[in-house]
């Protein structure tokens, strides 16, 4: 298989999945921004950088899916915390359901093909 084709395809997939990954990362609890970004950067195969995640977080916040707050820190710069809004949680659930359905369909296709 052509490497360029695969690279382009993975870029497309990652682009679509990034927002869902951010929402899922916030599913359990409010998270400190730096920590959140570091976690996402280290997700294998996602291949994102800090420069990509911050604009996405801002966009999700403007869309009302993510909320944020600043908390003063005695040991360094003020810390920014992110959390899911109610709308964000709904969107995350819908996206996860869609992903699961899609995955099942793709798997079924593969089995039929075999």
């Amino acid at each position, binding site marked *: 298989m052509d490497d360029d084709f695969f690279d382009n395809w993975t870029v497309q997939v990652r682009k679509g999945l990034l927002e869902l990954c951010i929402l899922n990362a916030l599913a359990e609890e409010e998270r400190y921004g730096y920590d959140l970004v570091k976690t996402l950067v280290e997700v294998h195969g996602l291949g994102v950088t800090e420069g990509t995640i911050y*604009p996405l977080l801002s966009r999700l916040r403007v869309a009302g899916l993510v*909320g944020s*707050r600043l908390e003063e820190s005695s040991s360094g710069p003020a810390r*920014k915390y992110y959390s899911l809004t109610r709308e964000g949680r709904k969107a995350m659930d819908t996206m996860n359901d869609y992903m699961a359905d899609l995955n099942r369909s793709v798997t079924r296709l593969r089995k039929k093909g075999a």
Partner: protein
Amino acid sequence: MIEWTETARRTLDEYCARSKAVLAGTGADAEEVVEDLRRHVDEEVSAAGLKIVTESDIRRILARFGEPGSAIEKKAVEKQSAVPPREPGKEKKRPGFILFALGVVLPLVTLIFELITGASAGVLFDPLPSWIHIAAVALVPVVNFQIWRAGRARDSRHERWLSWLNGIALGICVYYMILYLPIMPFATIGVIYFGLGLIPLTPLVALVATSWLRLTYAARIAKEKLPGAAWGAIAGFGFLFLLQLPVALTYYGLARASATDKVTRLHGVRVLRMFGDDQLMLRVCYGLLWRDVNFDVVRLVASGNQQISADQARAVYYQVTGRPFNSVQPPPLYTRRGRWNVVDQEFEWDGALGGEVVAGRVKGLSLLSSRMDAVAEPDASLVYCEWTLEFKNVASQQREARAQIALPPGAVVSRLTLWINGEEREAAFGGRSQVRQAYQQVAVVQRRDPVLVTTCGPDRVLVQCFPVPPDGGVMKVRIGITAPLILDSLEQGQFVWPRFLERNFGIAADFKHALWIESPVRLSGDPTAVVTPKSATRPFSLRESLPESDAGESKRVVVHRSADVKSVWSPAEEGGQLIRQTIRLVPAAAPARLIVVVDGSIGMQKHAREITDALLELPAGMELAVIVAGDEARVLNGKPEKVAPAVLTGLARSLRLAEFVGGQDNVPALELAWDLAASAEHGAVVWIHQPQSALLAPESTLRQYMERDSTATRLYEIQTRNGPDRVIEKLDGLAAVERVPRFGSVRSDLSGLFAEWNGKRPRLALVREPIAASLEASAGSRCSKHIVRLWARDEALHLAARREREAGIKLATENQLVTPLTGAVVLETQQQFTQNRLAPADPKSVPAVPEPQTAVLVGVGIVAWIIFRSRRRESLNR
């Protein structure tokens, strides 16, 4: 401390500037992303433990970052977000000190200031009449603080809640801004020139600050519009408006209920019955309103700026609730000195000083002691009772003690004493206007020591004494009452202790009146009474402690007597005459037509059944009509009908279904009843009513009917419970009015009256008449002068009825009696008596209850004399 090299700083700035340019139009908040990136770099530097940050360090970090937005598809983003990109130069700053001061500090300080000082409530109107209002006003600084803090932190987590609460706060600000609108121009001038008057301006300032905070917050979290501005404001404003609606309707109702025409008045009263705010009505009644609400927009709009006096409000309050205003605790008084400065539920200023009404409780005045000493004369079927009262005043100013007293049926005040510097001073008796004038001259003008007693209705007197000295001063008075017994039979009669109907002084919850009565023959009373049997040295006596809470009911003592004694006499003042009193069995002729007037006030509802049951005992053949004195006087059976089972059944049903509401004006119903009764040969009106604490219509027409009526029509009045009655007060001195003694339930007392008409119960009357002294031998045994006093009282009333006022005044004055024509006044000095052409009673001529010691001495003397006489007789026989 971490140091950055110049080039490191520049490198980061360039990256950020580049990022901003790239992010513009992507749907992300470029400013925010740049701040986040800078913060992230700071974290990286901190995590790496760098002390000096060089350009290479930054480049290494930024290399990991990659170019911002590189992974975002521009078209997709634009589709998702309609938020236009913000121009970097127009970025909103964080909400700062000014917004905090105007939106948080100012409303909070104003709220606390008003709560502590009541400044607005004392001068303009009360902006915080309830805890709900306080909570609503407190919401403004609380919400503003939250939104201020969230704006500073770009905290969008509670965006929806904060937006709605901010909308509600806007509505609250608008509401109060409208309330203070009329005063705002003056307040502005006041603030500019005198630095005072910030309260009326606070809602406007807070409104601006709240709106500004909303806009700033929206910009800070990159939202063009926040939800809930309009609906939140409508909710906040609407909530307070609805809360104020009963107040507005109360003002409206009060204005209508005080109108001159009857239809408007009735409309106002009905509105108040449905929606009236009890506390507000009470505030008007207690005169605590008009001085502090000159700029109350709600009142101005709702009442049409109609001023309502306290007197008008009191009458309306009675019509609406059926309760006298002063039977209810006054609402909190709002003054400059403090919002919760309740005046101990009493008036500070006594506006009724020297007048003829008792009015509300005055501050600091209370009853210190009360004792009633009575002596019965069973043969003469009477009791003489002295009620000694001590008033204490702990206020810092002089007070007048006033009380309406219910006398025993048919009784008369025959003595009045005031203690001045420890000495007893007897009253002067004179024409009613003469003694009142003397009292007002001495009490109100000269502020010296007088006491005045005048009548205020059948068997009712008004006692007033002034001044009860301030700072713990005490004033002591004694009222002597001569009362005939209500004879149940020849063997016994009942004496009803006098009691307060209305008073302007306080009585402690555990206060008790000390009652003492003695008699040469047996006495019986309540099971709680202590009865001491007769002995050689003392008569029968009965004593009891009566709590004031129980004194409202008719408290009685049964005086036993010898059935053989039917006639007694006493010499009259005029020479050569005796007054003879005879017990006669008087046939009580049933009226040919009976009109029963039932008060339609709310308190009468529970008596409807009793009344219908009693009506069943009316003699057959009598014509009967029942009128319910409601908002309109209504004859239940249309016109008088012969008493028959069907008629009574119909009346009973109608009466049970009748509406009893508020406090009703009974005068129109009494006029109608009198007309119907007087049109028959022998008519009677039985008026069953609760205390009428307000005179709602002039009584002059009714009084004219009764004065001019030449028929034998009589009005029997039965008051269902203790209390003052303004209608009865106005019928004072009319011979046609007869009070039905209250001994039991309404049913039993009505039955007693009807039983006399039925001939089932004999009516024993005490008939007093002057006879020639030569008939002494046939007039029975001699008794005290009290029967002369009782005869003089009745005669004075007859003379008044015959319009021979002067003769009546002369007779009552000579016999030292308080009647509708005369009164009693004690003045401090002989000069004051002389100036007012009055002469105090000679202490030797006034009646008295023997002191216990005196009684013992007299008893011992009598016993010794009897023993001496019997021994002498024995020695003579020998």
